[in-house]
């Protein structure tokens, strides 16, 4: 019983860390420019594949490769922003156009990966090999690295939003874009920064998780769906709420998987999601935005 509890706790925190990395990027984009980035899952997978490609081509040390892969994911985000989002930013039909544009970006990324790497499942080497046992629960060092990195990154991002000038600009834009524009905040460069940060976080999640899970070109879909659940559960656009929600959802998923059955984990979360939207439609830390987009 205690072992099962420990197992659920460990994998719950692990899930929560990854969801936190994925979802805080989504919520950052949503909060600042009210755009649902459907390419987020593809960027996540792209991070893992860039690391895989660099490792098999250059055989540099694993940490260096991982940093490069995160940079690559950020670069992809930059390209998406400059080529697809910036041109339609001022259009009246921005909602549907950005939905289509980001979906198109995700298709292009996924099929490019499929062309280059093929459809077989791949796995990355871990940063740290091995692990230790607590009771019957095997805790890998890599899992702890994932949790640690996620916590540090989420903390850094919160600090960035609270302290730095650019973070202040992002918060101002998310509160009221028109007022921010009138105060002379450069809107478009801020969006570019937001997109790059969010893509880097997605790439980081991909790189870190790529050594725990197998991945295929289409593997980004389910994490993105879960990240969307987390984003909504935490209240759209609220980064603190999202981080809390990530760990709550992650723990809930693993507890359901351990104590009820693995096939119920995702279904249970979606059912919970529907209930929550009916009872508390603005999310845990909701900002009253159920009627936005």
């Amino acid at each position, binding site marked *: 019983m205690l072992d099962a509890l420990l197992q659920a706790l460990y994998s719950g925190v692990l899930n929560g860390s990854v969801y936190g990395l994925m979802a805080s990027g989504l919520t950052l984009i949503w909060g600042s420019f009210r755009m649902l980035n459907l390419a987020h899952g593809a960027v996540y997978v792209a991070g893992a594949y860039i690391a895989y490609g660099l490792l098999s081509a250059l055989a540099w040390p694993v940490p260096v490769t991982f940093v490069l892969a995160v940079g690559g994911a950020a670069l992809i985000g930059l390209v998406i922003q400059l080529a697809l989002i910036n041109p339609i930013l001022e259009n009246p039909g921005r909602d*549907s*156009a950005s939905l289509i*544009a980001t979906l*198109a970006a995700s298709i292009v990324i996924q099929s490019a990966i499929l062309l280059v790497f093929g459809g077989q499942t791949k796995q990355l080497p871990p940063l740290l090999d091995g692990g230790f046992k607590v009771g019957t629960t095997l805790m890998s060092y890599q899992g702890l690295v994932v949790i640690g990195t996620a916590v540090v990154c989420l903390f850094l991002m919160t600090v960035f939003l609270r302290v730095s000038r650019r973070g202040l600009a992002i918060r101002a834009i998310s509160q009221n874009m028109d007022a921010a524009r009138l105060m002379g905040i450069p809107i478009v460069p801020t969006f570019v920064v937001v997109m790059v940060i969010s893509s880097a976080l997605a790439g980081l999640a991909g790189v870190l998780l790529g050594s725990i899970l197998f991945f295929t070109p289409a593997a980004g879909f389910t994490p993105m769906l879960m990240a969307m659940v987390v984003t909504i559960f935490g209240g759209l656009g609220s980064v603190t709420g999202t981080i809390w929600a990530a760990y709550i959802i992650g723990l809930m998923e693993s507890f359901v998987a351990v104590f009820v059955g693995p096939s119920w984990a995702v*279904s249970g979360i979606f059912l919970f999601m*529907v209930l929550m*939207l009916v009872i508390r*439609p603005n999310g845990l830390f909701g900002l009253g935005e159920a*009627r936005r987009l």
Partner: protein
Amino acid sequence: MIGQQAENPRPWPVPTTGPRAPARLLPATLPWAETNWLGIGIVSLMMLLLPWGLTLVDGGNYITHLIITFFVWGIVAQCWNLIMGVSGIYSFGQLALFQVGAFTTGVLSFSVGLSPWLSIWAAPVMAVLSSLVIGLPTLRLRGIYVVLLTLAFHELLRNWITTGPQWISAGGFGLPLVPRLGFEHVLGPQYEKVLYYYTGLVLFGLTTYAIWRILNSPIGLAFTALRDSEDYAVSHGVDPFRFKLFLFAFSAFFTGLAGGFSAHYNGSASTSLFDFGVMINLLVMIVLGGWGTFAGPIVGTAALTFLTELLRAFDLYRILALGIAMAIIAVAAPQGLVPLCGRTFHSLFGVFFEAE
């Protein structure tokens, strides 16, 4: 009277154009009042004769098959466009509703043993019921919530059908032996496809006509108003929830029917149709042709169905090309190809029409 300039009943001059002009019914409000019956007659006659011509041509059977595929996906694309494009609900559950139809009639005819002619009617009914189940919690919400909940419904249904009991999933791949409609006994096996063609044509024609009537009715106007400014529409007495739910059920009916027909035509209900690629294909059909227009999804479906066959040899690059095409359209021509062609045509040749 309709379509003509009303007599000016007032003693002072009334502007006939501009914002101060008196409201009158535009000809477009009642398009069936000035239908081009000759054009429609010629097109329908050609559509009716086409399959017989194709039976004479070498490889015509395959072209008939492609046209039937076009009918099926054309129905789904039109229904999805009605929800996504016309009324602006970002629902990604249309393919799931299609699969609800396919598996309902598949289970009833294959596992229960009903005649396919009876079971196919359960498909739209079941699809409508499922659409109400999704719609009731979803449609009070907007934007990202709808995207998420409908995607979640899609994933849950896929999960449930692939891991479901033997009589639904037959081991995860779907039902391999759904009984066909028995057309091979009517006129002989060589004319089987012709009868499927006619069935598909009837379904496609019914759907297109129903959607055309809806779009050009006060209901269609209400949907457009809801999409463009919900507050304005509400202030004029449109209940968004009721209208959206009606639209959801309406499009689910035809989507489910298309799903049932496709299952009986292909003789299988496959779980591979849940793939994200199929959904993207459908979405590209809508986006390419013209998001929110009447003719857009039809043109898009035709283009994609037949172009895909021509580009069979480059299958790996096909999805990449679709993605790039979608990105270009989203950035350069967000309204799609049909309005773009219309505008281009008008700016090139409009001179000749304005002289009238």
